[in-house]
């Protein structure tokens, strides 16, 4: 019975990495700062690492990416920080200061590794996933959820909104990104 349920959940389609990359480009993103996350690795990070229109900045630690994106924004260049939720949690102080308190358009795409496909992130039994949602709510950062393929349509407008209002953004990726 458990196996059958798992199969049903696994069969739910995730968002397309190609569509996410297209959304970045539609929002005039030129740089992606990233640390690998198995949730987004094959579908998104590997393809964008080969994309000549996007410059990948490989990070040693995720909080660097918050500041790199803010620095790029001062220079008039758009960027996205791609990381796992563990990196988000590790970066909360940088997000607090360099993004939220300073009103900077730092756009983050955060993979929710292990989130169950058939329940909302806020109700996840994975402690780190639920904590991420709770922390995000406390920060007041604009948040969009990318679960199903059609949800990618929310991404480019959200990035545009972040730059138009000079406010940070987090896009939570709730399913494994498909190649």
């Amino acid at each position, binding site marked *: 019975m458990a196996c059958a349920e798992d199969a049903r959940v696994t069969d739910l389609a995730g968002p397309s990495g190609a569509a996410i990359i297209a959304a970045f480009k539609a929002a005039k993103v030129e740089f992606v700062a990233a640390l690998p996350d198995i949730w987004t690795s094959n579908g998104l990070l590997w393809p964008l690492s080969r994309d000549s229109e996007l410059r990948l900045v490989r990070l040693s630690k995720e909080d660097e990416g918050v*500041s790199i994106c*803010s620095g790029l924004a001062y220079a008039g260049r758009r960027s996205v920080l791609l990381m796992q939720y563990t990196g988000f949690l590790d970066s909360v102080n940088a997000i607090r200061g360099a993004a939220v308190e300073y009103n900077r358009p730092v756009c983050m795409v955060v993979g929710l590794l292990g989130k169950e496909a058939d329940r909302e992130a806020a109700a996840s039994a994975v402690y780190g996933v639920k904590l991420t949602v709770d922390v995000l709510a406390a920060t007041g950062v604009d948040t969009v959820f990318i679960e199903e393929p059609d949800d990618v349509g929310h991404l480019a407008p959200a990035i545009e909104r972040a730059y138009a209002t000079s406010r940070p953004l987090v896009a939570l990726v709730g399913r494994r990104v498909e190649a």
Partner: protein
Amino acid sequence: MRRDECFAALAAVRDSAIVVATYTSAFEWERISPSGLNLPATGAMGQGSSHALGLALGMPGQRVFVLDGDGALLMNLGTLVTIANAAPKNLFHFVCENGTYEANGSHPLPNQGAIDFAGLARAAGFPHTYTFDDLETFSAALPDLLAREGPVFITLKVVPGPEPVKYDYRWMHGDATRTRFQSAIDALA
């Protein structure tokens, strides 16, 4: 050597460089070389060099100086590897080594005095690294090191100057300071 005298030497050759300065260095630099192109607001300790990397990548034709602290660098040591890998030719990473957390009561750094910061940068992949403990030597070397293709890493072994540092955190973190910086950046375009 005195930090204020090092900064005065650097200010003399600054030209239109963007300067990202952290905590105690930020206040002292603003007194010595006030400019809209100074960014003292880096949000969290250790994040100055990462802001500078973003600026350097975004404005490759513009020199970017970081005036980092040794304690701040320890909080974001991976930045050395990230910068070396991104390899911005226009980034100059100065670290003021005083061996203490000066803005937080001057407590000593772990392993105070035994850390080779330039050695760490070299091992991380910086192509050019320097250490100075003498003002005359530093001043004489400045034209040559600024002519190098970056990223360049410079350790300055310093002590505070005689003038007390005024810690004005409202200025550092205020909207007006970031607005001033953005306006100066926009004016470069």
